[in-house]
């Protein structure tokens, strides 16, 4: 169970370091209930005014819906594209699989600032700047590698014999994929869905390069807001975002179990 052989000073040290690790995320919660006009801690008064202010902030609300829709669409496309790709890469007979896998997960190796700039320049000449389509493609570039990684690992760990058994029982390749492979991949698919959605929803750097005056996502809107002034409004948004993330994590835990997904 616990690391019983750890000394007490060590336990205290680790506890303090954990506090350091989680401090900002924890602090955001009380600040969101601040009654003050400016950001201060501890606040002189408490109130729900900053949550109410959210409801009155059309920019934030529309940015939220954009992020939500974007996340949903990007997640759906990521799965539709990555599942076949993972199947080919993992089940393919030639040895190009490793190369293709590395090529398609390579975008994760690049810093988002470089990737964002690169995409900005190309999209400018293609007319994708400030468009919803451009945002979708920009997000897909980084969600696809994540989805591919999770799905390829899941597929690689499946018992091949089950697919072979289905084949000997008369199942044609497509039927086997639909009735046996996909259902067995379910935990991986759920994990990939959650991952893609959260990555897209939280994405800010690449999105900064691709948004325009009339199109913005929630993280980008928050960024501009913090850039100009730091008030507790951001805290209330942050709390809601944290709750959203927690909800997604809970759903993953309920359906497939966290230990299986994250502790690999």
């Amino acid at each position, binding site marked *: 169970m616990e690391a019983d052989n750890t000394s007490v000073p060590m336990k205290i040290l680790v506890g303090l370091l954990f506090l350091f690790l989680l401090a900002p995320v924890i602090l955001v919660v009380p600040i969101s209930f601040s009654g003050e006009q400016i950001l201060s801690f501890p606040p002189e008064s408490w109130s729900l005014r900053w949550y109410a202010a959210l409801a009155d902030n059309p920019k934030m609300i529309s940015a939220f819906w954009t992020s939500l829709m974007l996340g949903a669409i990007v997640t759906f496309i990521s799965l539709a594209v990555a599942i076949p790709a993972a199947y080919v890469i993992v089940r393919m007979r030639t040895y190009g699989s490793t190369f293709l896998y590395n090529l398609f997960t390579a975008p994760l190796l690049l810093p988002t600032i470089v990737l964002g700039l690169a995409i900005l320049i190309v999209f400018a000449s293609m007319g994708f700047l400030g468009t919803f389509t451009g945002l979708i493609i920009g997000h897909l570039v980084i969600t696809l590698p994540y989805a591919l990684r999770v799905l390829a690992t899941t597929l690689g760990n499946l018992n091949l014999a089950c697919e*072979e058994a289905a084949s*000997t029982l008369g199942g044609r390749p497509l039927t086997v994929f639909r009735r046996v492979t996909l259902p067995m991949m379910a935990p991986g698919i759920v994990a990939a869905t959650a991952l893609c959605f959260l990555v897209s929803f939280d994405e800010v750097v690449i999105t900064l390069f691709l948004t325009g005056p009339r199109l913005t996502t929630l993280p980008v809107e928050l960024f501009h807001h913090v850039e100009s002034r730091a008030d507790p409004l951001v805290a209330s948004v942050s709390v809601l975002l944290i709750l959203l993330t927690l909800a997604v994590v809970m759903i993953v835990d309920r359906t497939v179990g966290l230990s299986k997904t994250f502790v690999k």
Partner: protein
Amino acid sequence: MIPAAAERPLENAMMHQTIRSGSPTLSDDRDVHLRLDGLTKRYGDSVAVAALDLAVPKGELVALLGPSGCGKTTTLRMVAGLITPTDGRIVVGGHDITVMPTYRRDMGLVFQSYALFPHMSVAKNVAFGLEMRSVPKPEIERRVKEALAMVRLEALAERKPRELSGGQQQRVALARALVIRPSILLLDEPLSNLDAKLRDEMRNEIRDIQQSLGITAVFVTHDQVEALSMCDKVVVMRGGKLEQVGTPVDVYEHPETPFVASFVGRTNRLEGVAEGDGRVTIGTMEVRVPGRPGGKVEIMVRPHRMRLVEAGAGEDAPTEGTNRLAGRLTRVTFIGDLLQYHVDVGGTEIVVEAASDHGRGFRKVGTPVAVLWRVEDTMVFGRSA
């Protein structure tokens, strides 16, 4: 052609559809259901299966027996269509199915790991093959019940595989393969993951079911007890090649090579020089063997065909037709049903087995003893080195 069975019109229709689209009939022996002609599988420079020829009559249970890496599983998977042969042909009921895809072959395969679909219930697992053949729902239900009853698992129809024990999963796998009434049943070491007691039970059950259905079956195993006890014919394989084909008694009593002799059953081995008249000199000793071999030979005798006596006892007066070697007792091992005597005979260790008898028969290590056996129980093989 394919023998018609009036009570199974649907399956025959399916089989006609699938196999008919193969190449034309190459028939000779009506009785042969499965034939392998020069079946070969090469991976780069290494050969997994080398020009295997085999003919399996209808309704027979054939064991592919051999150590790991001998090509038995590769052969089975080629018959199932999961591996494409490099060369040779696979003929079922007169039809060449060598290049036919797996899902059209009408064979049932029981995997070593059972390979049950984890997301489906036991009943749905068994129903899968029938669904693939577009069998109408009420009939599917009836036949699934039938199949589960055959393996005595009707009560667990709605459970998921992970809730079942190893033995139960194995029976579901068997039911799933048999419910489609395949022309050939293939089993890939189905008993290796079970514990000893369960293995004995399942061996008999599988054999009984196979015989009652009259279905041709090929059974892969590395366990000679399984091969000998269950099967009509044993095919001993080594290094991708066929060493010997025969009934269990044939293979056990008349092995054609030293490998078969030592793989199927325990043996003692001695090296000597044959004089050409039935005598063989082993160092300073001499024994008699059946026939009149000449040159360098290997002698093999099974431990339970030998008898151990005290060197100086009266019963050791030599009789015609009995071989006798003198030696020293080096160890006595008690394994419950047997007593194993390890004897040093001129530098070579011989093991003599005797049935245990209430703790009697323990002799002192170091005692001078004699090993006796009948001449006719001696197996002789030529030796190159």
